[in-house]
């Protein structure tokens, strides 16, 4: 492989991996505090993309307004999911929660189907994010710069919240002992809602980036990136935010490299991702940065 091709693929892998990372954080945050795999999380990408499509296409809003609203409403949708589908089951067996999550996912997909129809729609990519730079022999789409930059900024914000604020401390404390957090005078429900808000806002941003990268929108568009991001979260060690970022980047790079260097395997890129998950979990059941789960965490 020559250096140029490698660099080129690095750039491609970075933008794909960044999106996985943004989405993976939502899975890992929720798992960290509730031990729940939020299967509806991937569908939030679709929600964000559709709100943006409607804003720009139907109401002819300028894109910053439509995108802002899309991210905001997606955050709200995540909070609603927790309120409606998970909070009432907090004391129920874990399996009920899981079933509720799957049901919520179907609900979102079918709502989109009813409201927007099954036909795929083009996503209105703002003019300023189309096109590419050519540097030497490197071909760098503007999006490939935008995506890691946006992701980086959001991650810095998120890490500041988690590790430098009182709310972030409460979020991490809930992951270790929910009942005792309430003994600190903290309204646990509000912290959980806030956690869903964080994860869903990031999923909203990830959804818009994804839709700009693959500019087609349909009701089931969130499923595959959602699953991939879930893999990324497990790869990194579910419950660990840094791990989710690492897992997302790793998965993004691997997928892109496989397609670039083994073009014959290109059709199997998803299969490769899932195989990777199985192999890594066999070797390291807790993921890259995950700690062994104590009994109280299961």
């Amino acid at each position, binding site marked *: 492989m020559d250096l140029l091709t490698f660099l080129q693929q690095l750039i491609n892998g970075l933008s794909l991996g960044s999106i996985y990372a943004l989405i993976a954080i939502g899975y890992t945050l929720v798992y960290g505090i509730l031990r729940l795999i939020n299967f509806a999380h991937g569908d939030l990408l679709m929600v964000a993309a559709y709100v943006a499509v409607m804003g720009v296409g139907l109401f002819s809003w300028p894109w910053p307004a439509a995108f802002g609203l899309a991210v905001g409403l997606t955050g709200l949708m995540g909070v609603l999911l927790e309120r409606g589908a998970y909070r009432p089951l907090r004391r129920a067996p874990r399996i009920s929660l899981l079933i509720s999550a799957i049901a919520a996912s179907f609900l979102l997909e079918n709502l989109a189907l009813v409201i927007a129809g099954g036909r795929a729609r083009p996503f209105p990519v703002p003019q300023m994010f189309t096109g590419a730079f050519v540097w030497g022999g490197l071909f760098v789409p503007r999006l490939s710069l935008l995506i890691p930059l946006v992701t980086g900024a959001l991650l810095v914000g998120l890490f500041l919240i988690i590790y430098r604020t009182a709310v972030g401390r409460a979020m991490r*404390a809930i992951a270790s002992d929910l009942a005792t957090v309430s003994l600190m*005078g903290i309204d646990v429900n509000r912290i959980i809602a806030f956690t869903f808000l964080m994860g869903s806002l990031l999923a909203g941003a990830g959804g818009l980036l994804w839709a700009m990268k693959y500019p087609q929108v349909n009701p089931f568009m969130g499923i595959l990136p959602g699953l991939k991001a879930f893999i990324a979260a497990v790869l990194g060690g579910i419950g660990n935010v840094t791990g989710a970022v690492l897992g997302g980047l790793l998965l993004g790079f691997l997928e892109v490299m496989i397609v670039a260097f083994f073009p014959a395997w290109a059709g199997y890129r998803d299969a490769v991702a899932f195989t990777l998950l199985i192999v890594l979990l066999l070797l390291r059941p807790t993921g890259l940065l995950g700690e062994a789960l104590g009994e109280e965490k299961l």
Partner: protein
Amino acid sequence: MLEVFDLQVSYGAIKALDGVSFSVPRGRIVTLLGANGSGKTTTLRAITGLAAPGRGRIVFEGRELQGLPTHEIIRAGIALVPEGRRIFANLTVYENLLLGAYLRRDQPALARDLDQIYDTFPRLAARRTQAAGTLSGGEQQMLAVGRALMSRPRFLLLDEPSLGLAPLLVKEVFHLITRLNQQGVTILLVEQNAAAALKIAHHGYVLSTGRVVLEGAGAELSAHPQLQPAYLGDEPEAEAPPFSS
């Protein structure tokens, strides 16, 4: 300050508390004694809303607490050092103490209180950036006490705060409780160490299988001939037969 009337708490079919009544006057130290499983922890959990009473009333400064969510009870000025320490293992010592002060906004006073806790427990000071889960059992106990104090409670509940501490530190903790009390904090203390607890308590209650079986002023109670049998388990038929080889 606190009055408990006819409190009843069940875990499924098990009646853990069966009509417990007692009161903790403002500015006093009251201790709750009893054998293992007599309902001491359950009483503290009911007061703080962690266990839901099936019957009875819990009145704090004229306000009914039963049915309120835990965080609102805490906001009334109550803190609990829970049984088994329950420190946040993945957070640092410093972060644990800050969480204790979550509700406070008075920065300068908060920093002073933090220093004071580090003064009282120098072992915590030396480990302030260490993950709390890596502390020894005794150090975790100090942290649980420190964390509760960080909220500046007016009413402090302690569930066996001396458990797992070396004798010298047990003495230190009892001194601390007395000192806090002199500063105006009302205290409800659950202890295994009945003699030590009664020495500092103004009043004591003895629980047995979910009922109050004995009560009295601290000194009076420690001299009570029935304290030992009651404390060790009052039902003769439940007593283990003498060990024979």
